[in-house]
């Protein structure tokens, strides 16, 4: 049981079609408030995982590139060190954790987060009474004035670990599946224990196409990307 885990994800950009299945699966699993029209105009919409779309070129030599973006659960997370109340900290499983009832809403973490994957609740989340029946009982509804972000579906990690414990077995690779990974129709997203050398995610980390976004910042993200393959690319290499 005392295995030191380090949860991580691999994102194969070559398989991501930008279909948004992960985005809605995450919203359903994690009780994310309905992103109403005004939220977009105010730039306050919440999506723990989102699909970023980058343009390259113009008609007719035009490309759209899709990059799924979520909390990178960095080993040296710049958001953690600035929290005055330890609402965000790094746990011993490699997760960047947000403790909602410690958070006092300074938003320092969001300010220090280069990926823009932390979201502040500017309002009390509102659902019509009937829609509240869908809310996931495993996940806290965040109140106004606190930060929230991708948890790697910690409720699923806990449930799986507990179930495995009750069955007297170890958690195996593929047992823990966050909502986004579960929905992804192309299997572009892979989740697992980076410390387990036999896991699929550890294997993908060694792939020749592996890179990490904003790696130069030295934050050691736990999300590993695999470069998009484009045989017709104008030039191989980096794009900003």
């Amino acid at each position: 049981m005392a295995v030191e885990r380090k949860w991580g994800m691999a994102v194969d950009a070559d398989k991501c079609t930008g279909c948004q299945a992960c985005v809605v699966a995450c919203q359903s699993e994690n009780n994310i408030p309905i992103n109403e029209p005004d939220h977009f105009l105010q730039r306050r919409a919440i999506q723990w995982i989102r699909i970023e779309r980058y343009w390259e070129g113009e008609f007719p030599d035009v490309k759209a590139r899709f990059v799924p973006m979520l909390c990178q659960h960095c080993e040296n997370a710049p958001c953690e060190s600035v929290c005055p109340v330890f609402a965000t900290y790094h746990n011993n499983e490699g997760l960047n954790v947000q403790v909602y009832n410690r958070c006092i809403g300074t938003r320092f973490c969001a300010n220090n987060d280069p990926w823009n994957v932390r979201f502040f609740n500017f309002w009390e989340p509102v659902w019509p009474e009937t829609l509240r029946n869908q809310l996931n009982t495993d996940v806290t509804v965040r109140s106004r004035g606190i930060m929230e972000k991708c948890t790697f579906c910690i409720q699923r990690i806990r449930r799986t670990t507990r179930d495995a414990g009750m069955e007297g077995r170890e958690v195996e690779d593929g047992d823990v599946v966050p909502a986004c990974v579960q929905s992804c129709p192309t299997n572009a997203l892979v989740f697992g224990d980076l410390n387990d050398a036999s896991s699929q995610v550890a294997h993908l980390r060694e792939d020749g196409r592996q890179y990490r976004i904003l790696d130069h910042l030295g934050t050691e993200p736990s999300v590993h990307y695999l470069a998009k393959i484009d045989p017709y690319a104008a030039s191989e290499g980096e794009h900003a």
Partner: protein
Amino acid sequence: MALTRRQLLKYSGLGLLGAVVFAGCRIPDREFIAESPVLIPEDLVYGDDNYFATLARPNTGVESVLVRVMQGRAKKIEGNPDYPMSRGKHSAQAEATLQELYHPDRIATPLRRVGDRGAGEFESISWDEALDELAARLNDHLVNPDSIAMITAPLRGTLGTVVQQFSENYGLRRYAFEAVDQTVVRTAFNRMYGQERLPTFDIQNAHYVLSFGADFLSHWHAPLHYNWHYGEFRGETGGRGKLVQIEPRFSLTAANADRWVYVNPGTEGVLALAMAKVILDSREGNADAMALLRETIEFNAQPMNTVVEATGVSADVIESLAHDFAANQPGVAIGGGLAAAQTNGLYNMTAVYMLNALVGNVGKKGGVIFNPPAPIPNVVSTAAANPLMDFQRLADDIRANKINAVLIRGVDPAHGTPASMQFGRAMRENVPFIASFSNFMDETTLVADLVLPDMATLESWGDDVPEPGPGYEAVALQQPVVMPFVEGRAFGDVLLALVDDLGGRTTINLPWTNMQDAVRSEAQELWIKNRGSVQQFSNFEEFWVAVLQRGGWWDTNATGGAPQAPDLSQDPGPSRPSFSGGASTYPFHLLPFPSHSMGDGSDAHLPWLQATPDPITTAVWSTWVEVNPRDADALDVREADIVRIESPQGVIEAQVYVNPATAPGTVSVPMGQGHSSFGRYAEGVGSNVMEVLDAISDETTGAFAWGATRVRLEKTGRRERVRKFEGMVVAQTLPHRTVYEISTGNGGGAH
């Protein structure tokens, strides 16, 4: 009283008093059950949950799903890992089925109209009253059954059987409506291969995919299944396949293609034939197929310079694509979407699908796979819709007062047909009795006299024969996973109940008392077969539980038809497309497309899907028009300008989105918005592109040519910021630092 966070902390410290204060807040009991208290995630307390296999029926097609149910409430949709069309995956649209179930604007009881038609004034009545009235009104008109029209979505499975049999027993007119008409592709396969059912394109095993307008990653045929195929196609095993998308619009599939080739709208068939000619001339095709097709191709193919001029594709590109396709087999050519939605749609599809025959990949791995029907007689396996032309005739008949009653279920032709047809108005003014079986007050239900709320998908019994299917026999089962949330009744149950009230011929081939009974009877036939994924049960009750748990039944050994030579004897119609609106007055080709998340608009009432960014523009909660940057300069418009989009048939307004991938001379507008009535999340959002589309159809099949209208754009001078995800977060990238990386795939790593 409202409890602030600060008060909460204070009261929590007071122990028992806190509990009293909470009770005084009158938070409904249900919330205490449905929601966990504020705890750190590590301390979460679990109740009992269960997973049930059933079906979700979003606008993108039927999916087999597992629903997590906790304390009687559906919480989460997950893909059914067993079912061959899902493989544990599910779409954003399927997830939103939960919001259909718990939608605040669901119609809770039967309604009877009390005000004027369309005024939205209804009174709530009991089911007994509603059924009595329905039976009485139908009995009035049954002397002339041809004056009663039954309009539903295309239905498969036992509900399809019930509706078909009910209509046949009484001689009612039966219509199946889909706004984005698939008739052309169906007709092409029916004529060429005698196939009633849609085929499956084995993208997973293909090395090369040549798609003419089929946006199979977003909204064409079975997008979830094809997304899964695409993941495998891009996988390591067997090398990475190459995808070429030939389409006038930069669709999601074009965005994911290795190469996107712009082609002038409606000239896809000419292009495909030119490619066939190249393959034929270089003898790169299948020998038997070349011998068989030589005459047809040589007769129909046009000279290369004519093709280049018509299509806008250079001779080099045509030749290289043709050679690549022939050389990289197994490969598959797919046609649909905008290529089929033209006045020469059938010609285009026939030419595209002939390419498959030419390289000999029909019925083969990595090619076109045929799907067998369900192994049970009388269960509907094909959900063909009526082409638009049938609805035009129906609208004419309504106006000629030939229709006395309309029974309509789950479709909204008042919103989903071109406004120039005036379908909604004809219904409102000329049909004496309209009964709508709908959960929501959409535009069509608004003019109904009697509204009989249906069950939500997660509350009802049903089944499906997947189309396109996995290439072998499969039946998916749907069971209720929660108690009905409102006083709805399943449409099938109501029809079966009418059997007693109407008497007479209704019992012919309708031996069931309700839909559960019907689905059980179907399962009994599967049990007797004793083969496939669920077999060897001596007792039917055990089989019934097992088959429901798995979400269905399939037999991987019972595959579809063998490859056969195509029959090209029937006239595929004209080669040249025609358009509504002259090029001088209306300079832009309007290329509408089903909204990625909401499709034709049948899911526009679900807030998750309204808020799901369009993958290309990232726009949400709106209708926008995509314009090429140079065209935008010429029109002196930029993003957020509101423009009038005018066709010979009508005018709508939309916000400009300047899209670098939009071809000059074309503009694109998503379907699905502009609902005047459809619940709080859909009403008043955007505009309906159907209001500018001309009701013209494919000349041979009568299917809606929704890609054949030309428009002009006019600045209104007003501006409104585009609701979109793009720009939501400030990019904090530095020059020469990576956000995304590209590899050419030649064994090279990233940099």
